[in-house]
């Protein structure tokens, strides 16, 4: 179990790197990776808490809200909307898909991922 949560966080960090590298050349790629980076970070914490990871996206968001707070659900929802637009085009335009917005959400996601690492360190 310990290995699982560390692996998940490592993948999350790799994905965050990919987001930063692609943000100016391909907004779509970075948006897609951003959702999964945040998802991996949250899954890492769920493993750490020895809880089952829901397979359904929405149930994962709900569990993140229950374990970590509303801001996790809200960010998941925005990132998913952005990812849907990046992957499929004119869909879920609840959030604007542009570099500024991707950057802002990357900052939020990295900040929450950092908070998760601190939580895991404190709760160990």
């Amino acid at each position: 179990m310990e290995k699982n949560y560390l692996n998940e966080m490592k993948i999350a960090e790799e994905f965050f790197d990919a987001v930063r590298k692609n943000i100016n050349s391909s907004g779509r790629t970075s948006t897609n990776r951003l959702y999964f980076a945040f998802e991996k970070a949250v899954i890492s914490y769920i493993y750490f808490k020895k809880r089952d990871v829901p397979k359904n996206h929405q149930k994962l968001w709900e569990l993140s809200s229950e374990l970590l707070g509303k801001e996790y659900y809200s960010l998941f929802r925005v990132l998913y909307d952005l990812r849907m637009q990046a992957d499929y085009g004119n869909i879920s335009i609840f959030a604007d898909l542009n570099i500024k917005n991707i950057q802002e959400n990357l900052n939020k996601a990295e900040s929450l991922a950092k908070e998760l690492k601190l939580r895991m360190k404190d709760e160990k």
Partner: protein
Amino acid sequence: MIKYQKSMMKIMENVLFQRQEKSIEKIIQETKTGRNSAFSAINWLGKNGMIKVKKNGNQNLISPVIDNYTLNFKYYLDSFAFKSLDSFVKLISQVFISGITGKTKVKSVILFGSALKEKKFNDIDFLLLGKGLDTNFIKSLSDLREKIERVFGIIINIHQAELNIENIFTGIVIYQSSYFEIKDKIKFQYFEFLDWIFEAVKNQSSEDFQIAFNNSVLNLSYVYCYMNNFNPETKSEAVGFFRNKYKINNLNELKTIGGEIGKELFK
């Protein structure tokens, strides 16, 4: 009384949904209709402007006439297709539609995607058709979407496009702006339940949670009583009747029971 009804229905469905020119032989083969009744039905449909019949050498080619009258045939078949769907999809669609009704920009709502085709699906796709369905309009639906997602645990994808024939055929038409909003006292109570349980979901760590939770139980109790032809005289009588059947200890259990009752109510 229109003659050859069975063959005519099959032929109209085939021609309208595939919207391509094809020979009578092919239509007979695909629809498995009898030759005589198929020819008679095609003759009648052609004479009355429901299909186009074009001579091509020795054979006749058939294509649909697309106008508001033949489109009514699609809507008619769509209503059967919708009513035959999984009860959960019907519940979610009708809750979604209740939030769209009255929004004049939306002329039609189409249900499409995996929820139509597969038994297991992760999301439900709605296509809104109309004019001026811009980002601000879509953003105005975020509360409705969040309510459905968080109460029923399913992701809602909202797409938007112009109202045109091509888009009408993307899936099943589940709403048109001419639809009536039919809400009896049971459905009224169910929508109140949804409002309160959504408040409970959003305020799980707040002191307002218990009020929202209790109110949602109360509304759902009335739904259950009315569905079972029981008219309680007091609130506690309603809740007692409901709790005799369902033991609910937490929000997740209430969501599950609410979904089950909703499926029965909107089937």
